[in-house]
């Protein structure tokens, strides 16, 4: 068996062109997960029991549903109910919903780590709830949440390969095409595996740099 590098290189413009769809789906889903996740996390730390209960139900629902099942469901069931979404929007929504449960937990961890004393100090200088959230709570919560959030971004990048199952022409989809047209499964899948590996590692590396910088700035000296 030989690794047909030349063949892989010849096909690589098409293959890695799929990165456009991978990137689009990943970023759309990430944006959806961020927004929903923050809203759900804020509900989870609410004083009202009912609100907390709703949030918990949401998180459990989407965490316990396989991403692929949710993806198929939204992709095939929405049109039946007359909801017309573009293929890209539908798959991004599915992945975004799936990850939003985890995202909510990531935000909640951060929100709960914010020192109550600083919240009181914020109130005592006359901040409204909204300004307090924006200027004191979220900046500190994200310090704790950011590594978790970036990890979820990296996960999303990898999970985005699921969308190939409904015919979105992303990296995984194109790898399957190339592999069957040229009979080079090893080469094609190794190629995209390397891609996912490198990009995912870069993301994690970036996150650790930020963490180190923040640790230096905020770590107590005493």
């Amino acid at each position, binding site marked *: 068996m030989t690794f047909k590098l030349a063949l892989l290189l010849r096909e690589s413009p098409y293959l890695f062109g799929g990165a456009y769809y991978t990137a689009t789906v990943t970023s759309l889903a990430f944006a959806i997960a961020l927004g929903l996740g923050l809203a759900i996390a804020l509900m989870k730390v609410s004083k009202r029991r009912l609100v907390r209960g709703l949030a918990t139900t949401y998180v459990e629902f989407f965490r316990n549903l396989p991403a692929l099942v949710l993806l198929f469901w939204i992709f095939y069931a929405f049109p039946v109910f007359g909801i017309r979404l573009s293929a890209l929007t539908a798959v991004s929504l599915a992945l975004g919903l799936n990850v939003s449960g985890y995202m909510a937990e990531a935000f909640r961890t951060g929100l709960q780590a914010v020192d109550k004393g600083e919240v009181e100090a914020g109130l*005592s*200088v*006359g901040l409204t709830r909204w300004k307090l959230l924006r200027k004191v709570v979220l900046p500190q919560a994200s310090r704790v949440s950011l590594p978790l959030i970036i990890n979820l971004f990296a996960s999303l990048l990898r999970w985005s390969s699921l969308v190939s199952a409904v015919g979105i022409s992303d990296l995984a989809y194109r790898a399957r095409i190339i592999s069957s047209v040229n009979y080079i499964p090893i080469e094609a899948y190794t190629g995209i595996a390397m891609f996912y590996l490198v990009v995912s590692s870069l993301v994690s590396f970036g996150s650790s740099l930020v963490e180190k910088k923040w640790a230096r700035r905020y770590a107590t000296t005493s």
Partner: protein
Amino acid sequence: MAIRDTDNLNPDAGADGDRFVRAHDVHACYGKLEVLKGIDFTLQEGEVAVLIGASGSGKSTFLRCIMALHPIEKGEIHVGGEGITRWLDCDGKLHKDTAKSLCHKRSMMGMVFQHFNLFSHLTVLENVMLGPTMARDIAKAEARELALTKIAEVGLGDKVGSYPAHLSGGQKQRVGIARALAMEPKLMLFDEPTSALDPELVGGILGIMERLATAGMTMMVVTHELSFAKAVGTKMSFLHDGKIIEEASPSDMIAAPSTEPAQKFLREVLV
């Protein structure tokens, strides 16, 4: 103890009406535990009240109620003629603060906390500027000048760019004071400002507070620093089990407390 219970509110404050701080029959709870059981308290402008009492007697809770950080179940508090969180008008009608009016009232007071509670993600300058820019709508450049003045006043002019994590306890509390002063408050609340400090740092903080008092600031101070109380305080209130059971000038109370709990408490503090 429902919040609409208006029985003990006092629409006509009578002779105390001109007092700057006025608390009448204030009750407050933590869950089911009632910690304030009917506080009556007044303070005139420019006065410095020292609140003492054993831990759990309600001193800190009382300050927190004045700053509206803790809800009052019953009774009312007025600062500078304005009711805090809930109060009765002349016709006996109950009013409650909206979120907005509460923020406005808070921004007219300053509070200094036992554990400093500095915003750990902001520099010293940003800590002090946050209130003025966000709550008082002062333009950034002007707020910066104001903050720098207040920071210089507490002797931290060389630390404006530092983060709280890189400051000593004494320096942190100086920032805490500067942050409160930048609100240009009419009333300063100090909640055990020196209890978390190493002994050698206490004097500096008390010195700053003494200067403030001399300059005419109206202050309420929860502290066990009796020498400070004697030198600076105009009155001393002793809290016991959620009530103020004794009030006198600091030197009188320290020399000869009249109630038994105060005698016991002061004996223990003085030892």
